[in-house]
């Protein structure tokens, strides 16, 4: 039985929460009549119990890290420690207003300042802004810093170079920031094609956005040369840090010559992904970009007092309200403190080891498009299987659901056909990783013996594949109320 809509459970007179009567008497009308709402919104009228049951039952329809192996490449779906949730929710953090003065918020500021420092050490860059709300937001912020720097120097540069294997946010961020993204080819080894890159380098280039390790899970071995090349024409190197999990305490973007990098806390630093967010995308930048950072930044004075600095003439301003995703950042701080430098290094080692091991186990099941050592993730291609059986990466993905495993990232990066990008992470056990390989083999067998089983997968979920074409044709984006109001149709209500 599918869980009905909350709107179908609505019945006049029911309530989930009541508020006290006002204790203020004899007030004149509070607001002029024409400003008042005449038609109330059709929010559901339901009891608390109905809401609790609804959300509890719906939650069971989700796969999650807490319930399933979730080797979603590029997303680093690792375990989210519960202590971090608990600490970030402490009253002393949760109930702080963003405009409280520094003196009354020393606890949070101390955490944020230390996190800035930690991220600087991890990335090897000297300055940090915690403001961006997610990875893409960090990309945008950093590109705006580049723009500000060039504006400050009266240089006109309008191009941002981006490899073809890049994540979609890279070109999108470049465009939103007002730049023209230009694509750089990859070699058949899956790395930046240095020839192509050189051909596109010019004084109009403001910078390059490079993911390293890249989205194929490969380390860009030429990264230092790329940095030099860019710098030689006065352009900047931006590192998309989505894959930092592979290189924590192993190698640092700052040491490659990068000018800026973002960190996805919700990947590398294990803040939970929440079904789509929130994350945080702090950036670290070089000394010359520091003065352009958004405000506020957290500073520590000689007397051991932490404060938010809001001034700075050259700051780009701000990319969001208030300080940043503070609640998320506290979790990230806790995570780094729990691991320490040695632990961070072990994270990277184990993440890479798991991927390498799993890749080895998968090599004869599907195709490995690239032979180079992978880092924390690797891509498989189902092209041959598709030719042989008509079974696509999509079908494999859906069939995995029947085995209780969340599918890898599909059809990304775009440079590989029928791609499945697999990232086991350091928090999944050998036994489960072995099981994944076994299941994948079984599915490939099924593709040969019973392809229909895969075309029709999944079989064990509450729904089969949704008709996405129909959804997009005339999108049904909200509940349709019946003309007569009382919506109650649902028993589970």
């Amino acid at each position, binding site marked *: 039985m599918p869980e009905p809509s909350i709107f179908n459970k609505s019945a006049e007179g029911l309530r989930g929460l009541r508020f006290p009567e006002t204790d203020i008497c004899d007030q004149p009308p509070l607001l002029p009549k024409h400003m008042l709402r005449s038609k109330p919104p059709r929010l559901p009228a339901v009891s608390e119990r109905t809401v609790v049951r609804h959300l509890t039952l719906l939650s069971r329809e989700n796969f*999650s890290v807490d319930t399933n192996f979730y080797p979603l490449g590029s997303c680093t779906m690792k375990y989210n420690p519960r202590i971090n949730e608990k600490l970030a929710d402490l009253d002393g953090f949760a*109930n702080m207003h963003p405009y409280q003065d520094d003196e009354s918020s020393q*606890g949070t500021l101390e955490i944020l300042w230390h996190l800035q420092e930690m991220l600087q050490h991890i990335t090897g860059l000297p300055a940090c802004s915690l403001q961006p709300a997610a990875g893409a937001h960090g990309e945008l912020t950093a590109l705006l810093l580049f723009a500000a720097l060039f504006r400050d120097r009266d240089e006109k540069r309008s191009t941002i170079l981006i490899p073809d294997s890049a994540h979609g946010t890279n070109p999108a961020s470049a465009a939103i920031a007002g730049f023209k993204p230009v694509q750089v080819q990859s070699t058949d080894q899956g790395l930046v094609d240095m020839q192509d890159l050189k051909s596109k380098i010019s004084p109009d280039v403001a910078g390059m956005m490079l993911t390293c390790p890249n989205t194929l899970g490969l380390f860009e071995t030429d990264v230092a040369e790329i940095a030099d090349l860019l710098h030689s024409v006065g352009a900047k190197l931006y590192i998309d840090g989505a894959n930092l999990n592979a290189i924590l305490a192993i190698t640092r973007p700052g040491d490659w010559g990068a000018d800026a990098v973002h960190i996805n806390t919700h990947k590398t630093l294990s803040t939970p992904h929440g079904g789509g967010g929130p994350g945080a995308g702090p950036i670290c930048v070089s000394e010359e970009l520091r003065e352009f950072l958004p405000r506020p930044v957290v500073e520590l004075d000689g007397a051991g007092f932490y404060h938010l600095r809001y001034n700075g003439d050259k700051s780009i301003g701000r990319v969001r309200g*208030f300080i940043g995703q503070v609640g998320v950042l506290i979790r990230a701080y806790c995570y780094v*403190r729990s691991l320490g430098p*040695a632990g961070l290094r072990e994270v990277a080692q184990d993440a890479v080891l798991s991927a390498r091991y799993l890749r080895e186990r998968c090599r004869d099941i599907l195709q490995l498009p690239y032979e180079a050592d992978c880092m924390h993730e690797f891509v498989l291609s189902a092209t041959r299987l598709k030719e042989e059986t008509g079974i696509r990466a999509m079908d494999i993905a859906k069939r995995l659901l029947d085995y209780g495993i969340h599918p890898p990232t599909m059809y990304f990066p775009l440079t590989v056909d029928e791609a499945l990008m697999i990232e086991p992470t350091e928090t999944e056990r050998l036994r489960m990783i072995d099981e994944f390989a076994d299941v994948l083999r079984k599915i490939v067998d099924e593709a040969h013996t019973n392809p229909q089983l895969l075309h029709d997968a999944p079989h064990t979920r509450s729904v089969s594949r949704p008709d996405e074409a129909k959804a997009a044709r005339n*999108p049904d984006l909200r509940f349709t109320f019946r003309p007569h109001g009382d919506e109650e149709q649902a028993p589970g209500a």
Partner: protein
Amino acid sequence: MPYLANSDGMRQQMLKAVGLAHVDELFRTVPEHLRYKGHLDIPPAITELELSQHVSTLADRNRPAGNLIHFMGAGAYDHYIPSAIDPLASRGEYLTSYTPYQAEASQGTLQVMYEYQTLIAELTGMEIANASLYDGTSAAAEAALMAANITRRSKVLVSQSVHPEIIECLKTYLVNTHLELVPVPYREGRSDLPIIAGLLDDQTACVITQSPNFFGIVEETQKLVDMVHAAGALSVVHVDPISLGLLEAPGDYDADIAIGEGQSLGIPMQMGGPYLGFMATRRKWVRQLPGRLCARTTDRNGNEAYCLTLQTREQHIRREKATSNICTNEGLMMVRAMLYLSLLGAEGLREVATLCASKARYLADELGKLPGFKLRYEGPFFKEFVLECEAPADRVLARLEKSGIIGGIPLLRFYPQMENRILVAVTEKRTRAELDMYVQALRE
């Protein structure tokens, strides 16, 4: 180390299977000279018990709202958070899942998303809503880009009665683009309609206003929207979702894009984030909308099913032509807002809104009677107002703090000329006794 899944024995087994003798060989593709040889200057690992003691001590160094009587607002408010929200939103199945790209493994999140979209559409009186943006501030920038995209025009007017951080954010987003941002001075705490009228032209993509505005005043939105439409521009209005329990909704006055900060909908203040940007608009502009969308459709067996839709608007498909670069959004905050609005219903929302308005009015009236204090603006306000003091605001606030009262936000923070003004916000949590204490503390 905590959180790692495999034991040393397992590690050895795996290394052997991939033909390596030592973990360092895993990183052979990292050029030798790029390998980090140092020791990160980060404190060594601590155990959960130590972390817990350490971080709790830091939390105790803060002075959170619960320990004080709190009148700060300006976009982040101390509203009551219904108790059912935490245990549900923190269920591992919501907390630890990814963006619902795999629909069959994400019907839970997807249905919540669809219901959230409906709730926001209803709340704002608009046709459709997206499934969240980073926050209410960046939502304004997204709206400006969207309006420019729809109208193919390049001028963005913003009233300076909008929150100054929103204006700052707009500037930051637009400075390197072909769009021009024109801030329009306000008058007596409200958008100055005649000036806006004068600035509206055939290059104006949109006019951005906020109501209740930064100073708490409810704008004359209907007049404004009519004026904007007359010039062929779009009206973007930033609203306080709680206010919509009482005030006319953007859809009622025919606004084009309604945006706002969803923090008030069951999200703790947590010093600024994570919050929840919401956005609602007309159905005909769905393809210009930034952010994720969930649609109801059918599965192969004809059963109801939910999936993400119109992903061709998004960066992972459309790349540089996407309507926005947003990827990770505020999913879990959306779950909280969905819960909040479902628990309250229209009645509960009306009650909260009325309590806020009534208590704010009472406090304003009582303070206005004190010598040395007056309301700065005369316009009708919702839950927030500007108190003008004879003395400098910081002195007044310091006096209040002695009584355990955080009296509001000194406007000097935003405007150098506003040394004597305090922005005071009153939520339903403030009791009559607390309001009277506020008055009393200034009377003495």
